[in-house]
């Protein structure tokens, strides 16, 4: 159940063509290229819409991804590291995105900082696999989660602004 803005943003992200997971030696590199293509396009679109909110990069074989995401709340910028592994059943199952710094601070998270995507994301991914990729995971999975949880955590004092993180002009 994404809102209008999210749905519009997602519709601009190109869909992926190759149905291959990390165990498929021949086709995985092709899928990896398509992932990067979609992610680059998505980040460019975000920048153009003045809503640049994450960066991602992977190891050489594309099985482990790390990056940062940030969230602007009341003119202050909050930054978080994120990470995930590509599961063997990808792209039929989505990776479990983890924000380790927030581990234990919210009920909407599993041990290790894995973001709970069951309600709002898992059925959506199941219906659109394998055409959805990591860009869609960011847009429909992590994005909405941050939008709901971060303001709540800030309000409860569980997340505080770190000096030097910069504020929004």
């Amino acid at each position: 159940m994404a809102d209008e803005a999210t749905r519009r943003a997602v519709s601009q992200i190109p869909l992926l063509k190759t149905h291959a997971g990390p165990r498929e030696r021949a086709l995985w590199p092709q899928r990896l290229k398509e992932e990067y293509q979609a992610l680059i396009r998505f980040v460019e679109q975000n920048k153009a819409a003045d809503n640049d909110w994450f960066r991602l990069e992977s190891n050489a074989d594309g099985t482990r991804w790390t990056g940062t995401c940030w969230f602007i709340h009341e003119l202050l910028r909050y930054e978080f590291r994120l990470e995930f592994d590509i599961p063997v059943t990808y792209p039929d199952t989505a990776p479990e995105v983890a924000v380790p710094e927030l581990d234990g601070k919210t009920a909407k998270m599993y041990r290790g900082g894995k973001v709970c995507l069951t309600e709002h994301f898992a059925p959506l991914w199941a219906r659109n696999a394998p055409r959805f990729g990591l860009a869609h995971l960011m847009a429909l999975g992590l994005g909405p989660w941050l939008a709901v949880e971060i303001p709540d955590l800030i309000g409860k004092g569980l997340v505080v602004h770190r000096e030097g993180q910069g504020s929004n002009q």
Partner: protein
Amino acid sequence: MNRLFFQPHQAGLSKVEAAEHTLRNINPDVSFETHNYNITTMDNFTHFMDRISYGGLEEGMPVDLVLSCVDNFEARMAINTACNELGQIWMESGVSENAVSGHIQLIIPGETACFACAPPLVVAANIDEKTLKREGVCAASLPTTMGVVAGILVQNVLKYLLKFGTVSYYLGYNAMQDFFPTMTMKANPQCNDRHCRRQQEEYKKKEAERPKVEVVEEEEEVVHEDNEWGIELVSEVTDAELQAASGTMPDLPEGITVAYTIPTEDTASGATVEETEQSLEDLMAQMRKL
């Protein structure tokens, strides 16, 4: 798993370690091998498939059966992928997010539906979700529901391994209404998992090659070679006596009956004790003198 056996003195141990300790105390003759890792990552998945292929009773042989007792969709899909690829028979089990329903499922790659053949099944709850959901919490948990599901899973395993009773392909449990639906689901020829499709082809080939066996039920008459003494089997109680001793049968649904019935007429006949002037103490003294 942790709700069924983890005890406070085991705090700090991983689930599988605590499980091994508890189970080893119950039966030291069982051999255990524990691994605590996320099976969805590339490295661990390869090791996981290895252990299925070679970790049987005799090292180097495959296991006989895999039981899935995990709590998330991704892990189940990983197990499904491994078993489809290896042609490994397994049983999947689970409890719903609202903790008031659960199920077990027997999966034979190629013959029955695999876990990816259809979207996840849900045992219909027939309840208003609003009475169950709490704000800000994703999942509920009831060790009682889990205990019931664990029980029916192991029961199904015993029937499968020891060949008695009817092994259920799918058995659901609706805790709210105490409803246990059963069913079978055929494999989906358009399953997303290509190994499932491959197993289906192989199964069809094997079925075509199998000779058709006529199942004829014969009632065997118990006959002995000789009966030198002319022994006959006769009921100790006559038909008339049997009738008199039976009462009315209560109206019961199919599958339930009574152990015995109680007749309406008083069948106990005979002399009763006499009236006596003796006191209790007198009778006790009389007994002691005997």
